[in-house]
């Protein structure tokens, strides 16, 4: 509990963070920037888990443990994404999103 801060304010902050992440995901033209946006989105949701755990169910640990799992999955995801980006850069010498659209129709 943060003295004087209600759950609404924290959730507002995380919502803003979440939509900043989505904005970045859609507008950025670079694969690594997209990756950064994904990290923002993930962090916003992790904070939500933790805060709801703390404010609503302080006797339990589910939220915390889920955050740990999410962080682990994020780490795995980042590792794979980075390796894919590096491989892609080797193949087409570019990490621009517009160059990776050969899967269309």
């Amino acid at each position, binding site marked *: 509990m943060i003295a004087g801060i209600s759950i609404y304010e924290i959730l507002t902050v995380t919502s803003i963070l979440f939509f900043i992440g*989505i904005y970045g*995901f*859609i*507008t950025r033209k670079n694969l690594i920037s*997209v990756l950064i946006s994904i990290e923002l989105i993930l962090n916003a949701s992790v904070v939500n888990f933790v805060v709801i755990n703390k404010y609503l169910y302080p006797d339990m640990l589910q939220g915390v443990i889920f955050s740990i799992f999410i962080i682990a999955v994020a780490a795995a995801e980042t590792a794979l994404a980075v390796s894919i980006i590096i491989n892609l850069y080797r193949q087409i010498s570019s990490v621009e*999103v517009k160059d990776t*659209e*050969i899967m*269309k*129709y």
Partner: protein
Amino acid sequence: MNISYTILIPLIPLAVFLLLGLNSKRIKPAISGYIGVLGLSVSAVLSFYTAYQYFFVSGKVDGVYQTFVNKSVWMNFTETLHIDMGVLIDPISIMMLIVVSIVSLMVHIYSRGYMKGDDGYTRFFSYLSLFTFSMYGLVLATNLFQIYIFWELVGVSSFLLIGYYYTKPSAVSAAKKAFIVTRFADLGFLIGILIMGYFTGTYDFETLNNPEGAVILNWASTSFMGLSVITWALLLIFIGGAGKSAMFPLHIWLPDAMEGPTPVSALIHAATMVVAGVYLVARLFPMFYFVEHGFALNVVAYVGAFSSLFAAIIAITQTDIKRVLAFSTMSQIGYMMLALGVSGYDGHEGVGYMASMFHLFTHAMFKALLFLGAGSVIHAVHSNYLKDMGGLRKYMPITNITFLIAALAISGVPPFAGFWSKDEILVAAFEHNKLIYYVGVFVAGLTAFYMFRVYFGIFWGKEKQYEHAPHESPLSMTGPLIVLAILSAVGGFIPFSELITPDRIGFEAHLNYPLAAIATGVGLIGIVLAWVFYKKENSLSDKYALAFGPFYRWASDKFYIDEIYLFITKKIIFKHISAPIAKFDKKYVDGTMEGIGNKTVLISKAIKGIQSGKVQDYAFSFVMGAVIIALVFIYLWTN
């Protein structure tokens, strides 16, 4: 009586068929002939043994011939309705076993000579075995469905054998014609079987045929359009029988079926398969007799009588000897049908049934003999036509004598086999239906006439000079001729009336001298007429043909029945029904479906740009969709 071994009778030809059919390229022709003959000999011996056991040792209980059944359930539908597979032994099935065995064995032996040097020798023997298996199965069937299965199998073997010379277009079309016509008739048979199964709840012959059974006693319980449904079922079944037995108007395939090798004509289209229809009616005889007071049986009688007369008239005008024999076969089968149709049930009343079976037996012998003899002649002259023959008695003495015996037998001259059976048929007809009797007598005269027309045309007539002197056929061909000639000569002395009757008790048959004298006299008149016309080469026949004018041409063209069929199918059904339907199908049904397909392709081409392949575009749509759905939910929840 233990009959479990009889299952071997059909199974041995089946084994031979599989052996020869699967190894047709590996087995030498000579050996395959021996295998076929050997396999069939075993079956024949078993058949004879069964017949002996049944008729003279253990078949009779208290003076009544019993029915022995050995079967197992094959498909189970309800408590009572199930399809069995098995063998049924009763007098007529044994009689048919003997007929099939003798004729098939003779044809096998004969074919070894006739087909010598042919490319498909092994194939031919495998087909013959397949046919024999199917025919045995048909004869031994225990229920309607089993008989139907084997019925179709003989149809298939007949198709295969008619089309044996499959490089010849006429043979191919004849095979197709035979198959389609009989298949069309079998549709009636199948519907009849289904109706029968639906209303009686059983396919079993024993249950169906029991005169005191529920089926026969309750025939009037359900009726349709003024007739009992059982009568309808029987009539539909008779359509199947009429198709197989070439009764008018489903006879058109039989003359064309002569495109097959001659031994095949002797086996299938003279002695065995074509009498399957007669056998079917005889098999269901109690039903035909008792249901609706024999209405269906009357139909059988009139169809038989008409076909008999019709075919006999056409036979006079034909010039292809095999076609003469084909129409003769049709006429004689009509005779058998007619005999069944005028038969009663109890005691001496059952003379028609007995006579029909008797005639079936004797006819199988002499008609097979006639075909094999014709085959022998064709083998020597290499032509089917009477104009290419003449004076052959000097070259082919054995064929001449045997053919003469067969011709005398079919003409009903005593003491040959045909006389006895034909006489019984005429007695039955005389006692029950005078009109049919007169038709029968007239046909007897016609039969004698056309048969001796062929005989004199082949062996006497004009003294033709042959490029290659014809010579007598080898022993493998004349042997069967001699055996069959002996059977045709003495077959009439078998006491059929004591062995095969509808009520299974048997009676003493007496020759009805006035009727026998009339029949014989008519036959002799026919022979004498033929002698006058055809003994020496003269123009008498042409003159009379001219005198009959249009009628002669009409008969010569088989009364245009084929043309009528063609007209109905091509001009009416194809042109006015099938073609518009086909057009509708192409234009609208197909068109709709293709239109849907084409439109789908067009639309997808137009909208495929939406799939940009950029993940971010998809993400944009996804987020937008999610937000819209969230808004919708909020709207729904807050109101």
